[in-house]
C-alpha cells in the first residue's frame, strides 16, 4: 500500500459523494426521455439538495435522538462502504476490513437506522413503511451474503479486494455458471435494497403504497437532503460493487500509480453510469409488483444465490 492508495480511497468517497446525485438524476432523465417527457436534467437532484439544505431544520414533536441521527448514520454507513470496497483501487487503507460480511452489516446498519427513525415518529405511515422495509431487508440481506459468498469461493477469501483481483486475474470467471447466477441474484436484491421498481416506486406520491418513502415522510429540509443523498449513495456504491465484482476491468491495483488511479476512476464512473442507465431504461417498461408478490421475487433471488454457491463450490472442488 502506498500514499496513492490512500488518495484512491479519498477519490472513492469523494466520487460517491459528488456523483450519487448525478446517478439519480441520470436515471430520472433517461426515464423521462424514454417516456417522451423533457425531464429536469441530470443536475436536478443536486439542485433539490441545495434547496433542501437551505431550509429550516424541523423536528416533529415527540421524536427522539433516533430520528435526528438516523440520516447521518445512513449517510455515514454508505460513505464508509464507499471507502472500503474496491471501486477505484484495490489498495484501500481499510482493505483489511473490506470483508463482505462487514459490508453487508454496514448496509443493514443504514437500513435499520432509518426503520427505527420511521418507528420513532410514531405515525401510522412511519410504522407501516418500517414494517415493509424490514420485511424486505430480512429477505435481501441473506441473498447478498450468499451471492457474494458464491463469488468468494474461487478466490478462497471473503475479502472483497481478493475477490475482485481473482476476477480480474481470470476474466473468464465472470461467465462461470456460479458468477452468472450470483449476478442475477445481486441485481434483484440491489433493486429491492435501493427501493426501485418493481419492488418500490421512488417517484410515487401515494403514501399507502410507499416502502422507503413512507419511513422518511416526516423528514424535511437538511435532514431530508441527507436521507435522499444517502439513498443515492447506497445505490451508487451497490452498482459500483456489482460492476467490479463481475467486470473489474480498469481497476487500479493494490499499489496504484497516478495513471492507474485516473483510469480506475474513469472506468468505475463509466461502469456505474452504464448500469444505472440500463436499470432506468428497464424500469420504464415494468410496473410495481403487488406487495405480497415481492417476497416471491426475493425468494427467487435467494434461490439463485443458493444455486450460485452450489455451482461455485462444485466447480471449485472439481478443479
Amino acid at each position: 500500500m502506498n500514499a496513492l492508495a490512500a488518495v484512491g480511497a479519498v477519490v472513492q468517497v469523494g466520487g460517491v459523494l459528488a456523483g450519487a446525485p448525478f446517478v439519480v438524476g441520470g436515471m430520472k432523465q433517461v426515464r423521462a426521455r424514454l417516456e417522451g417527457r423533457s425531464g429536469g436534467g441530470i443536475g436536478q437532484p443536486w439542485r433539490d439538495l441545495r434547496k433542501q439544505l437551505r431550509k429550516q431544520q424541523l423536528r416533529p414533536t415527540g421524536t427522539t435522538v433516533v430520528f435526528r441521527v438516523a440520516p447521518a448514520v445512513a449517510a455515514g454507513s454508505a460513505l464508509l462502504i464507499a471507502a472500503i470496497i474496491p471501486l477505484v483501487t484495490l489498495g484501500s487503507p481499510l482493505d483489511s476490513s473490506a470483508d463482505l460480511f462487514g459490508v453487508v452489516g454496514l448496509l443493514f446498519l443504514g437500513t435499520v437506522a432509518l426503520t427505527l427513525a420511521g418507528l420513532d415518529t410514531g405515525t401510522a405511515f412511519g410504522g407501516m413503511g418500517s414494517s415493509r422495509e424490514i420485511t424486505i431487508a430480512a429477505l435481501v440481506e441473506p441473498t447478498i451474503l450468499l451471492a457474494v459468498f458464491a463469488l468468494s469461493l474461487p478466490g478462497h477469501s471473503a475479502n472483497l479486494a481478493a475477490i475482485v483481483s481473482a476476477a480480474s486475474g481470470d476474466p473468464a470467471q465472470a461467465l462461470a455458471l456460479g458468477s452468472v447466477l450470483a449476478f442475477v441474484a445481486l441485481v434483484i436484491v440491489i433493486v429491492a435494497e435501493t427501493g426501485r421498481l418493481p419492488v418500490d416506486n421512488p417517484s410515487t406520491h401515494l403514501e399507502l403504497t410507499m416502502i422507503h418513502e413512507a419511513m422518511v415522510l416526516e423528514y424535511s429540509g437538511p435532514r431530508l437532503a441527507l436521507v435522499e443523498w444517502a439513498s443515492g449513495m447506497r445505490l451508487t456504491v451497490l452498482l459500483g460493487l456489482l460492476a467490479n465484482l463481475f467486470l473489474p476491468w480498469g481497476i487500479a491495483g493494490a499499489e496504484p500509480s497516478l495513471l492507474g488511479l485516473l483510469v480506475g476512476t474513469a472506468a468505475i464512473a463509466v461502469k456505474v453510469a452504464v448500469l444505472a442507465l440500463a436499470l432506468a431504461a428497464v424500469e420504464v417498461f415494468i410496473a410495481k409488483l403487488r406487495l405480497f408478490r415481492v417476497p416471491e421475487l426475493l425468494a427467487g433471488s435467494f434461490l439463485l444465490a443458493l444455486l450460485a454457491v452450489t455451482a461455485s463450490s462444485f466447480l471449485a472442488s472439481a478443479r
Partner: protein
Amino acid sequence: MSTHPDPAAIPVGAHRVAQRVAPENLVVEVAGLLDAGFRLGLVAAHDDGPTLRVVYLFLAGAPDRRIELVVTVPVGDPRLPTLAALSFSASRFEREMHDLFGIVPEGHPLPRRLVRHAHWPAGWYPMRRDAGEPPPFTETEPYPFVPVEGDGVYEIPVGPVHAGVIEPGHFRFSVVGESILKLKARLWFTHRGVESLFEGLDARDAVHLAERISGDSAAAHGLAHSLAVEDALGLTLPDEAHRLRALLVELERLVNHVADIGALANDVGFSLALAHTQRLREELLRISAATTGHRLLRGSIRPGHVALLSLPDPARLERIAADLAEIADLALANTVIRDRFTGTAVLTDVQARDLGCLGYVARASGVGTDARLEHPTTPLPVEVAGQSDGDVLSRFLVRRDEVAASTRLATGLIRSASGRLVVDAEPVADGPASVRSGVGIVEGWRGTIVHRVEVDPDGRLTRVTVVDPSWFNWPALPTAMADTIVPDFPVSNKSFNLSYAGNDL
C-alpha cells in the same frame, strides 16, 4: 300493487308526475315503486314556512318515467318513517336531510351525522329558512369512528390533506398486517352549501354555479341544470341543440376517461402510460377550448341555449382514440399490471345493485345503467360498455371501451351536424304562474347526474337539489376494499375516481 304512475298523480313536467302521500303511507308507496323497477334518483327537502315538504323522485327508464312522491310534515315536529329497510341510498338521503333540515327519520338503523362534522352544534339546521348565521363551532358533539379491536389491529388515518393535488377526504383504515378489515371514508370536508347558493338567482342565469359543482363534470352538471330549468319554464329546444349538447358531454367523457386510464397505470408504477395519456388529455382540452372557448367546456350550455364556436375535427378524435387504445393495450400486455388489476377491490353485482351504484362503477359490476338510454333528450346510438367481474380491471376495461364508443358517438354527431352552431329555445309567451319544478337528468362521465329545481313566478330559483353519481358510489369504495391490502388502495380508489366536491356539495 297499484299501477305506476298512480291515476291520482298529476303531471308536473316532462315524463314526470307528482303524487301527494301521507307520511304513514310512504313506506308502502315506495316499496311498490321499487318493486316496479324504479330507483330512487333524488330526495329534495323544502322549507315552506309552516311545513317542511319532502319530494322523493323515483326514476325508471325505457320508457322514461319520473314519479315524485310529495310528503309534508309540520315544521314544529318534522318526523318521517325511515325507508332504510327498502333502500340504502334512501337511508343516506335521510341522514343528509336530518343534518340540513332537522327532519327526523323514525326508526333509522344508523341515525348518525353525515354532512355536518362534530364541530357543528346540534339543533342548528343550515337549510331552514330561519337558520340565520352559522353559530360558533363547538367541540362537544360526539362523532367517533367505530373502533375495530383485536390482536394486532391498528389504524391508519389518511387525509383529509393528501399528497398530490386531490380533494379533501379522510380515510380511516383498520388493518391487520397489510389486510384491510374496515375502511371508513369521511367526506363533506368540502361542503360549500352549493344548493343554497343557487337560491334567489335568476333561473336563466345560474348555470355558472352548476358548472362548478364538480370541476371535471362542468358540461354534464351544466346540462343537467339547464334541462331542469327548461323543464320548469316550459322551454323546448330543437333536436339539433340536444345533439350539440350531447357532443359536449361526450367530449368531457373522453377527456376524463383518457386521463384516468393513464393514472390507473401510473398508480401501479407504470408512468409511461400516464405520460402519453397526459399528452392526449392536453390535446382534448385544446379541442374543447376550440369548440367552446373554454378548456373545461364551460359557458356553452345555458338554459334554453347552446353555442359552439366550431365543431371538432372527427378524424383528430379518431386518432386520439386509436392512440388511447394502443396505450391501454400496452398497459394490459404487462403481466404485472394485469396482476395488480385483476381481482383487486371487487364490487359484486349484488353489492352494486344494493348500494344503488351508477355509471362505470355499476357497469363494471354487471349492472347496466345509462341515462343516455333511460332518460334521453334525443335518440342517440349509444353503445353501453359492460363487464361483470367488478374489479379494478373491469373498471379499466369499461372505461377503455367507453372511450371507443364515445368517440364513435361524438364523430357521428359531428358528421351529421346541421351546421348551425348556436341554437336557442322557442320563445314562450310568459313564465310560470306559480312555483314550478323541473328535473334534468344527464349521463355524465361518472354516471347519472340528477338536478331538480323549483322556480318562482319571477323566474328565480327557490330551491335546487343536486345529486352527483359520486353520492351513490362512495359507499361502494369501502365495500369493495374489504379483503384488499393497504398498498392496493390508491389504485382501487382511482378506479372508482369519485368526486368529493360533487358529493359534499
